[in-house]
């Protein structure tokens, strides 16, 4: 392993892509997030670290609009996240999210899992979506798994 690459290089500059300001979230009496402020700039890789139950997933879910925040604000590209369903849906189309247990769609093949987003959300034609998906699968060495179902894959 080349340890030289493990050095953290901070070359992020400019305006934050994602900004959290005094974000708060409660579930009933439970305070999940209180006064969270952070910024993420272009080119930056940011790790959110904390013990189980400290609100890491909650913050991500709020960022993606799967939960609505109770206090503070979250801005993407300088614009506050919309609080309505359709506005948030358009934001999600540009924001990737990987779930803790992946949440692959078990009734779809690997190819189906990769193409369902472009096809339903971007209305990409089937052939184009599949071509792009196969190129991407090729890139990560999974093109031979395209017709497999998630249950047939090994984890990790």
């Amino acid at each position, binding site marked *: 392993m080349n340890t030289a690459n493990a050095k953290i290089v901070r070359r992020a500059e400019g305006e934050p892509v994602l900004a959290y300001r005094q974000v708060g979230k409660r579930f009933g009496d439970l305070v999940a997030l209180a006064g969270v402020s952070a910024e993420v700039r272009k080119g930056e890789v940011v790790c959110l670290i904390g013990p189980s139950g400290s609100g890491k997933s909650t913050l991500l879910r709020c960022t*993606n609009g799967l939960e609505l925040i109770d206090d503070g604000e979250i801005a993407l590209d300088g614009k506050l996240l919309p609080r309505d369903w359709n506005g948030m*849906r358009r934001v*999600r*189309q540009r*924001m990737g999210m990987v779930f803790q247990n992946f*949440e692959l769609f*078990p*009734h779809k093949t690997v190819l189906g899992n990769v193409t369902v987003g472009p096809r*339903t*959300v971007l209305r990409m034609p089937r052939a184009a979506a599949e071509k792009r998906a196969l190129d991407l699968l090729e890139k990560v060495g999974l093109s031979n798994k395209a017709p497999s179902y998630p249950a047939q894959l090994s984890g990790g």
Partner: protein
Amino acid sequence: MNFDWSVVWRNSDALIEGTKLTIILAVTTMAIAIPAGILLALMRLSGLRVLVWGSAGFTELFRNLPLILVIYTAYYILPVATGFSFSPVITGIVALSLNVSAYNGETFRAGIASIRKGQSEAAYALGMTRWQTTRDIVLPQAVRRVLPVLASTWVSLFKDTSLVSVISVGELAYNSMRLRAQTYRVLEMLTAMAAIYWALGYPQAKLVDWINRRYAVTE
């Protein structure tokens, strides 16, 4: 006791006609009751009060009334309520559909509820709409999951079509009973009827078992 099985062969035309109608009744009812059941389940889970109550009211009414009562009621009420006179076959299909739709609604509701929340959240995270999520992610999984339940509903329905004989729909039970009364060959006709229902029902149950194994979703 004397048996005269020739009565079955001599009347095979009526039995075959009845069997055909029985199959038509069951297939048509299910073809109506599956989309209706999905619709009822989506209404029930929509969160919109009017739809929730409409669906729940329909389901609880028709799930808890004896089917034979629904059949009689449809027979007497439908012409009055609509101003049209329906054939007994149509009336029978309406009554059967009301009953089976209510059952299917509950089946699909359970199936949809059994798909874990993360699946729809993953779809939302891709930017899919609620309807796209329901149509492409939740429903296909839910339908596969409830196939065995739909299958037993189907097997029940196939036999329950015999109840519409009370409004003189000439299906298998009605024709068998009529022949029994005309020929006085009670055991022969009942046995023939049983044999036909069983011979048709058993392979269906087996076929459904196979479909279930074939299309089961493994996680």
